[in-house]
């Protein structure tokens, strides 16, 4: 029972990571560059929701849309500054540029938003859905999901399905996939590569923004320095899953969430070593399968 509960916790947390990972995988797949600004974009999404709630009251869905839009807008700026110029240049240049950008956004956020931690409104007042109960040796154990956890998982699933449909069934989606496979070939068949890249980047960032809001709601706290850790988790999930492989990234995210939670559950003082579990898993995964655990063969990494 305990194990199952930790497993459920892990899946819930993992699904937030998965959402971030999907966004990151989109950006990497379409723009083709690694970025370190993703954490800050997640942070901007969560802060936009904070201000939205302050201004317009507690509407969850609208706040998610607001977060998506804000993150996408920030994504446009990041794209123009860090990616567009360096699309064909050696990777490390855009990487350093994104490191600089991330520092810029983070410090501006500290100045503008203030450096104290802020809370998002509490939804669903701690109501839980109890899946199973049992009393063992006088302990009352239960397997439960809080409503918030359910909302998080459902949102992620919905968004993932929506993205999949978008990419596979619409013309724009096909264009995006074309660009992610081969930029030059896509240009040859008449795809507007420049705009499509921008679009792909913005959608990826939007996902990050939504993930940021979910993070803020789940942990009930946001602070301008939250980007670093979030970005690292997103990045690790994507690498485990195989860089431009979207379903792989999602699986990578969930597996990291689960591994972390199980690690904390079973290893003494586990909480301190949380990140170590994720990284050790990552390293082992890459040693076994250098292109990423779930990567399809022949994918341009």
């Amino acid at each position, binding site marked *: 029972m305990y194990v199952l509960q930790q497993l459920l916790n892990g899946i819930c947390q993992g699904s937030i990571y998965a959402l971030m990972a999907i966004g990151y995988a989109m950006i990497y797949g379409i723009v083709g560059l*690694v970025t370190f600004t993703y954490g800050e974009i997640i942070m901007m999404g969560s802060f936009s929701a904070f201000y939205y709630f302050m201004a317009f009251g507690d509407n969850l869905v609208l706040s998610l849309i607001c977060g998506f839009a804000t993150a996408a807008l920030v994504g446009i700026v990041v794209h123009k*500054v*860090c990616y567009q*110029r*360096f699309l*064909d*240049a*050696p*990777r*490390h*240049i*855009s990487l*350093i*540029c994104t*490191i*600089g*950008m991330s*520092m*810029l956004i983070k*410090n*501006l956020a*500290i*100045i503008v938003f203030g450096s104290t931690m802020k809370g998002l409104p509490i939804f669903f007042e701690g109501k839980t859905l109890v899946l199973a109960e049992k009393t063992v040796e006088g302990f009352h154990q239960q397997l439960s999901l809080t409503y918030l956890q359910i909302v998080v998982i459902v949102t992620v699933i919905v968004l993932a399905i929506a993205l999949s449909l978008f990419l596979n069934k619409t013309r724009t989606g096909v264009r995006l996939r074309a660009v992610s496979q081969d930029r030059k070939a896509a240009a040859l068949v008449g795809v507007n590569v420049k705009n499509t890249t921008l679009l792909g980047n913005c959608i990826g960032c939007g996902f990050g923004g939504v993930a940021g809001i979910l993070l803020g709601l789940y942990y009930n706290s946001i602070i301008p320095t939250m980007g*670093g850790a979030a970005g*690292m988790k997103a*990045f*690790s999930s994507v*690498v485990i899953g195989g*860089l431009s492989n979207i379903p792989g990234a999602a699986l990578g995210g969930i597996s990291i969430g689960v591994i972390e939670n199980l690690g904390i559950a079973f290893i003494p*003082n586990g909480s*301190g*070593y949380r*990140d*170590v579990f994720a*990284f*050790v898993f*990552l*390293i082992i995964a*890459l*040693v076994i399968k*250098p292109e*990423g655990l779930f990567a399809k063969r022949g994918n341009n*990494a």
Partner: protein
Amino acid sequence: MMEKIKAFLKKYQLIVLIVVGILFVVAPLIINGTVKKSNYVIDIMVRILFYIIFASSLNVINGYSGQFNIGHAGFMLIGSYTGALLATKLGMGGPWYWLAIPIAGLVTALAGLLVALPTLKLRGIYLAIVTLGFSEIIRIVAMNWTAVTNGPLGVKNIPKVWLFGISKTSSPLVMYYIVFAFVILCLYTTYKVINSRVGRAWMSIREDSAASMSLGVEVGKYKAINFMYGAFWAGIGGALMAVYYRFISADMFIVDEGFNVLAMVILGGQGTLVGPIIGAVMVNMITEFFRFADEFRLVFYAILIIMMMWMRPQGLAGASNSVLAGKQIKKNDKKKSKHAAKKERV
């Protein structure tokens, strides 16, 4: 114009080197007597020297063999802690510390080997995230392994290192010369190694790993040696840091620190000996310069980094003719684009 400066420098290379060397040696003595805040200025210079060692060692890994290491903070940590623990727990402080320093270097080199082994087949961003992972794992272990590293309490009261029986060596001036000696050693050995077979193997791996493999270069072996070499000097730098600051703790080696060193390497220029020196000097001076901006300090620093990438991505002293420089970045230099066009036609 940069090219003209470079041509000039190349011609009078030896003289320039000697002049700069003398400057570095003499400057602190002059500053010590005259300038009002001398200890502060010399402290900044010592810090620059530390970063020269770190940036150089990272440059060997990133710039010369083209591998992508962003977890240098982990190596720095191992060097520092090894030195500090040898000094405090095993009594290797004071005059024995001179032995502890190379031991720290070797231990870190071993760590470098451990990092290199699973990653020999990884390239690019995969390698980067693994190095980052190692750096974080090392830091978290250091923070939690209370029995050995004192956990979050850090290692305190690290004894000063004795120089010929003089024990007043924590003064910035004396430490400056001690660290300076190591910097010279580091740069000299690096210079020798770069120009030897090993160095050439590294550069061939950087330019085209498949081609070099086909020519008989054992890529795996040289990549591992490369990591070990870079890690070794990072360890030496760390051990020196331990006796300068005399207190270390795991939070001095967070990921941001690794990024800091990476920024110095890239801004100064990868793939050249002098690049990391320029990078270290530049970054440290600029962060001090921007102190007046109060909370905007890091904002300006970030803007500067971005501007640098736009204007001169191979860094101030980078190897412009290597694969590391952006050949296809939009230039307003007609010569280069003509040259590039010629190459593509081949």
